[in-house]
Structure formats: C-alpha cells, structure tokens
C-alpha cells in the first residue's frame, strides 16, 4: 500500500502548482516578471498564496501501479490539514494501450505483447500516467 506516499507527493505537487500560479486574480500574477505570490516585496503575497484549492484532477493509468480506489481512500484520510483539505479529487483512469512501435497496431488485451504483423515488441503508448492534470482555485 504505497498510495499514502503517492498522496503525500500529490499534496506537494498541488502546493507547488499553487505557488507557481499564485492568485490568478492578482494583477502581479499576470506579469511573468512578478508572478503572484512569488514576489517577496508584494504586500498581498500572503493572500496570493492562501488561495483555496476547490478541486483537483488527476490521471491514473491502469498499469501505473497505483490503484485508483486505494488512492481515493488514502486521499480522504491524509488530506486533512493540507492545502487539499477542501479539494475534491476527480480521478480519470487511463486504460493501458500497447502499440506496435512500427505500424501503431494496437495489441488486444490478453494477447502476447508483440505485433502480429511486424513481430516487434509492443510499446506502452498510454496507461502508466500518475499525473496531476489540473487544479481549480477559488478566487474571491
């Protein structure tokens, strides 16, 4: 059960994303030279960095090694007291897709992972994602 450590990394990623963005409503946030919240001289810096995260969207591949159900449970337990405390998590599961690297034929589930026509070892084209896709911030 490594989903707890995934949640820790997830919360860190959300924190990093909020820091990077600051408050999108902050005039400084629109200025690439002075991204909201990152300018220590800005008097509203604290406001910028205290944006509430309303919702987060993650993508979890079916062969990523992370179980979406366990991740959701771990998230409910461990988000308390973090930036994600009030943020609902939406998980988009990504099915595994194995393809031939040469002709892009998709290998059907349950078959040997080798292209029937080119005899090439298949390549995982999708399904190993563990990605924070999008966050939604609450702006007054």
């Amino acid at each position, binding site marked *: 059960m490594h989903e707890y450590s995934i949640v820790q990394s997830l919360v860190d990623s959300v924190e990093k994303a909020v820091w990077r963005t600051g408050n999108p409503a902050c005039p400084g946030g629109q200025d690439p030279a002075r991204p909201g919240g990152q300018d220590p001289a800005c008097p509203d810096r604290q406001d910028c960095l205290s944006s509430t995260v309303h919702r987060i969207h993650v993508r979890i591949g079916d062969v990523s090694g992370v179980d979406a159900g366990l991740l959701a449970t771990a998230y409910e337990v461990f988000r308390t007291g973090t930036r994600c405390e009030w943020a609902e998590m939406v998980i988009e599961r990504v099915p595994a897709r194995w393809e031939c690297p040469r002709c892009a034929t998709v290998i059907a589930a349950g078959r040997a992972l080798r292209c029937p026509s080119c005899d090439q070892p298949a390549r995982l084209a999708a399904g190993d994602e563990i990605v*924070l896709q999008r966050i939604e911030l609450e702006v007054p």
Partner: protein
Amino acid sequence: MCQDCGCGDVNLVPIDVQMRILSRNEDVAAHNREHFRKRGILSVNLMGSPGSGKTAVLEATARALGGAQLGAVAGDLATDNDARRLQAAGIRSRAITTGQACHLDAEMVHHAMHHFDLDGIEVLFIENVGNLVCPAVYDLGQAVNVVALSVTEGEDKPLKYPTMFAKADMVLLTKVDLLLHLPRTRIGAIEESLRQVMPDPQIIWISAYEGVGVDRWAEWLQQQKKRLALERLEEVTA
C-alpha cells in the same frame, strides 16, 4: 452560486498543471542514475515477492563472478539479515531498513550511497523490498529492472501483477530444482503468462541451490555492462 448564507460567490479558476506526481522521486532517481553511470557501474533493481529467492540469486552470483566487484544495498522492513547474508557471500553490502514502507524510493537509495564505498564496484544490486506491487512504481536510478519469480508462485502470477513484469528487463525463474516436486506446474504456462505482460520477455531459468542458469545470468550482466560502456563511449566521442 450560494443564495442563502451571504458568504459571497467565488470564482473557480482552472489551472492547467500537467505535473508528474512522482516528479521529485524521478529527479532524485535521475541523479542516482548519473552517479552510477559516471562511475561505469551497472545498477540493478532486483525485485520479486517475499521468498522468491532474490538474496539466494545474489549469493549464487557472488559464487560465479567473485564477490569483489559486486555491491548490494538490501531493502527490508525490519531486519538487516539479507545484507548480512550478502556480506558473508563476499558482496559489499548495506541494509536499508524501511520500517513500514513497502518499497524503496530514490531518496533511500541516494541516502544509502552516502555511506557506501563504491570503489572497485562494477555491479550494484539494489535488492528491493519483497513485494510485487509497490516497487514497480518507484524509479531508483537503476540501469535495469530484474524480477525474481519462483516456480512455486503459480503459473498466472505475472497476469496478476502486470505492472511489475511490464517494467522488467529480465525475469529470473527461480527454484527450478523444485519442479520435480510440482507435477501440476507447467513452466511453459508461466512463460506464456510473461509473454502477455512483457513486450520483450527475457527469461532465465535458475536454481541458486544447484547453480543451474547462474552462468547465463552472469553472462547477461556482463552484456549489460558492455552495453553501458558502449553508450558512455559514444557519448564521450560524440
């Protein structure tokens, strides 16, 4: 939005992030990989179920290759028994006791390297915690992934843990000496399961106890070392 309590509406602003959640681990893993690569060390992430024979394979490897050029860090929840066994086999070893953690991560390996003398080491084994699930998720900075799968674990084991096997460069089918006592286990069926989850299955049958297959395994390691050396050479001359 809210009509009742006067709390005031909030605007929701979507921010596109597209961040790999394990990016921190991946950064440390890249650092480890570079550390090993610069020193010409082949780093092997050895994974498998508890009791699949990971430590026994390494003991047999030391008997075949001589322990002097081999190093190992062994992850274990509670003991340093494996590291002591490897040390006794002549492999320079160090335990990583993970407590409750079910896998090694790049940071643990990085930390262990601060206390590990790599002088003269050509192959460094990172013996992961016995577990077919969690270790598959964490890049440690290895050059190759190897999974030990014992013939007693069931013919369809690879189908139950596809992520682990999909990432393996080599599967060591261990304890083949026990097949004599397992009339219902068909080794062909295990290999067929592996073909459904591994794009390019490399499989060696091994009995660490009887020394069967260890020479082929040692030869595969030498090939991987050569491949790494060639890659470095191409890089230097490019």
